[in-house]
Structures are given as C-alpha cells and as structure tokens.
C-alpha cells in the first residue's frame, strides 16, 4: 500500500466525493418528488394516468441505467435538448430512481389497513385529508427500509455518470489511477468513501425507524 500516494490524492478524491454527494442528493430529492407524483397518478382513478406510469416504470426497470444515461446525454440533443453532462447525469439518476420509488411508495400506501381509512371517512374527512393525514403518515415507516435501500442504489449508480465525463468520485478515481497506475489504492479509497456515504443513509434509516416506532408499541 502506497499510503503517501493516497494522502497526496485524497483532497481530489474528497472534492470528487462532494460532487457525488451533491449529484446524489439532488437526484434523491427530485426522484422522490417525481416518484411521489407518479404514485398519485398510479393510484388515481384515471386510466390514462395509470397506464402512463405503468409504462414508465416498465421502461425504467427494464433497461440498463447506462443506456438511460446515454439516451439523455446523446439522444435528447437530436431533439434540440442539449444538457451539460452534470445536468444530464442528475436528470438520468432522478428519472431512474423515480421509477423504483413509485413501486416502493405505492406498496406502502396500499398496505395501510382499510380500517384506518374508513375511520377517517366515517368522521367526514375528505379523500385528500384522509390521504395526507392518515395514509401518507402511516406509509412512512413501512416504506423506509426499501426507500433507503433504493437511495443507496442511487448513490452507487451515480458512479455510472462517469461515462459522460461528470467529474464525480468514480471519474476522478479513474483519471488518477490511469496516470499513477495505483489502481488498488485509489479504487480502495473510493470504495471506502462510497461506503461511508451509504453508512450515513443506513444509520439514518435505523434512527428514523426508532423514532417512528411509537406506533407499534403495545
């Protein structure tokens, strides 16, 4: 192990890690919002909206993420939509994760016991009140583990946007080891940084599960 070398390049790697965190965070927020909107469309009574989301999820889940990144970066410009690499990367990650978040949110929402909903209807709550005051709050805890799981995937998938030269952790690592030839040191460090980021998410999950556990206490 060439520790001095790692030490020398650490500032570059950490800076790139910030880019990874930034891309992942924005994509997580956007992806969640799109996912939530699509979930409402999917459980709405409108057949066209349901079908739209169904097809969307089918396409996102059925095609490689790499292909989706290329499509947004190289194919959209033929329709006059030219995005800087980093924006294309964020768009790809957001749209991709949204496709997975939809099913996570939908499963949690539809698993809320009917009795909870009927209790709201029975006192005269309107459908949206039942949704926002009962169904969604009760969905948070069951959705949490798969939601964090998909968010961890999102952080790892962000390494794929290196293929369109976004200078995040993976891209930076590659350019460092291709000039220094110290693959193990550099990739090992990058791996540890990914692990650290995802550990934060993992801890967040555990903490939130604990905080939300009051309603299972018996």
């Amino acid at each position, binding site marked *: 192990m060439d520790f001095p070398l790692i030490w020398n390049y650490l500032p570059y790697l950490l800076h790139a890690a910030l880019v990874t965190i930034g891309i992942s965070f924005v994509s997580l927020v956007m992806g969640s919002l799109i996912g939530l909107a699509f979930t409402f469309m999917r459980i709405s009574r409108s057949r066209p909206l349901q079908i739209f989301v169904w097809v969307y999820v089918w396409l996102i889940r059925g095609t490689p993420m790499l292909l989706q990144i290329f499509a947004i970066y190289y194919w959209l410009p033929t329709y006059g939509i030219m995005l800087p690499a980093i924006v294309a990367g964020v768009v790809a990650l957001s749209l991709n994760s949204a496709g997975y978040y939809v099913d996570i949110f939908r499963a949690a929402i539809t698993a809320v*016991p009917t*009795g*909870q909903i*009927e*209790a*709201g*209807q*029975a*006192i*005269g*709550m*309107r*459908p949206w*009140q039942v949704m926002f*005051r*009962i169904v969604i*709050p*009760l969905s948070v805890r069951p959705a949490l583990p798969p939601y964090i799981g998909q968010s961890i995937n999102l952080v790892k998938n962000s390494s794929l946007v290196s293929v369109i030269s976004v200078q995040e952790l993976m891209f930076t690592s590659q350019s460092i080891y291709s000039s220094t030839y110290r693959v193990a040191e550099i990739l090992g460090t990058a791996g540890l940084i990914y692990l650290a980021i995802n550990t934060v998410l993992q801890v967040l999950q555990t903490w939130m599960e604990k905080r*939300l556990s*009051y*309603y*299972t*206490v*018996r």
Partner: protein
Amino acid sequence: MTAIIEFDQVSKYYGDVPVLKNINLRVDEGDVVGVIGPSGAGKSTLLRVVNQLEQHQSGTLRIAGETVEAKAGSRELALLRAKVGMVFQNFNLWPHLSVLDNIMTGPRCVLGLPRQEAETRALALLERVGLKAFSDKYPGQLSGGQQQRVAIARALAMKPRVMLFDEATSALDPALVGEVLEVMTQLALERMTMLVVTHEMRFARQVANRIVFMAGGEILEEGPPVTFFSAPQHPIARKFVSKVHG
C-alpha cells in the same frame, strides 16, 4: 318524533349476491336500537350503508331528513358522515396520533374548529369516558378497552346525530368488555340515538328500547326487548334466542 334514520325498501348487493333485501327501518331521535342476528345476516352492512361506507343499489335512505343520493359526491358524503358517528369492532384508532389528536382531528379538519376549542371539547370527552390522564398517550400504549373508549370519544367529538356501534366489544378481552358497555349505557341514558350491532344479549335486553332481528339480509322481526327475548315470533329468531340463552 323526529326520524334520524329511515330505510325505505333499501337493497344492497355484492355483485349478484343480495346482502340487504328491501330493508324498512326507522330510528327516531333518542332510540337505542339493538341489531342482532346470526353471522352473515347483513348487520355490519346495514350500519355501513347508513354512513355510506357501502352504497345501496335501490330504495331510499334518509338521514336526519335528508335523502342520501346513490351518486353523492365526496362533499355530500363528508357532510352526511359528519352527522353519523361510527365505532368499529377493531377500534381503528390512528396509531401515529396521540389520543388527544385522534379525537381532535375530526373537529379540526372536518368542522374547522380552532385548536383551543377542539382541545377543550376533546378533553371534556376524555373525562367522560374516564381517560383524561391518557390524552398524551398513543393508542399502542392503551388496552383494548381504553382504545375503544377513545374511539367512542373520537366519534362523539363530531357531535353526531346518531351513533353506530358494530360489535364494539367483540374484539375485547372479556375483562375489558364491561368498561366499554358502561360508556355505551351512559350514552343511552343521555338519550343519544344509537344503532347497536351486538352479541351482548344482556346489554341489548337492558339498554335497547327496540330490537331488530336480522337473518339472510332481511329484518325478520322487530320489537321491544322484553317481547322479543321472551316470545320471539319468527322461527329463526326463536331458534337464535334459545341458542344464545342456552
């Protein structure tokens, strides 16, 4: 006498299967009507049609004088349901809200009461069901009997014209049944209009002023508890009464 609930030839089907057949029933203000009958008789469905958790397909239903349209929008439904309190077998308290918030949600969201007023009302109701000290607890921290009493308070917080009870004590440990029946008895004494599906024959006999006996989606017999329990007319009712007494 003001009629609170009027069923006029009301029928309800699940698919092709009739579960309520030409129901005629009138519940006046202050009535306590006990609904009894074998499993699958349609008792729950009868209650759920009253607050339109289930829609009927034919006949006329009037609640507090207003006809319930089969194709009512969510606004009309909400207005109807605000007038009708319902207590479920499994309590259905919201586990993510404190006891106080469970009770305040209706007055706040549906009636638009200011926080202070809703809280005063909720606390008074908690006092009435003997659970004032539990206002900050969560449902998961209460016994079944306590949860059901909170659920009754939650329904009462809407100041409903009528209260529906669907086997409110069936899910409880025998030891906890009494405290809930006590609250219900108190309500009846305060002249609350009540439609009570129950398997507690003693309660039905002592508290109800009228018994409705259902089987196979029909009301087979209706009358004062004394007459009904001592001399049921319909053969099925006779068999049912002798079985629950035996």
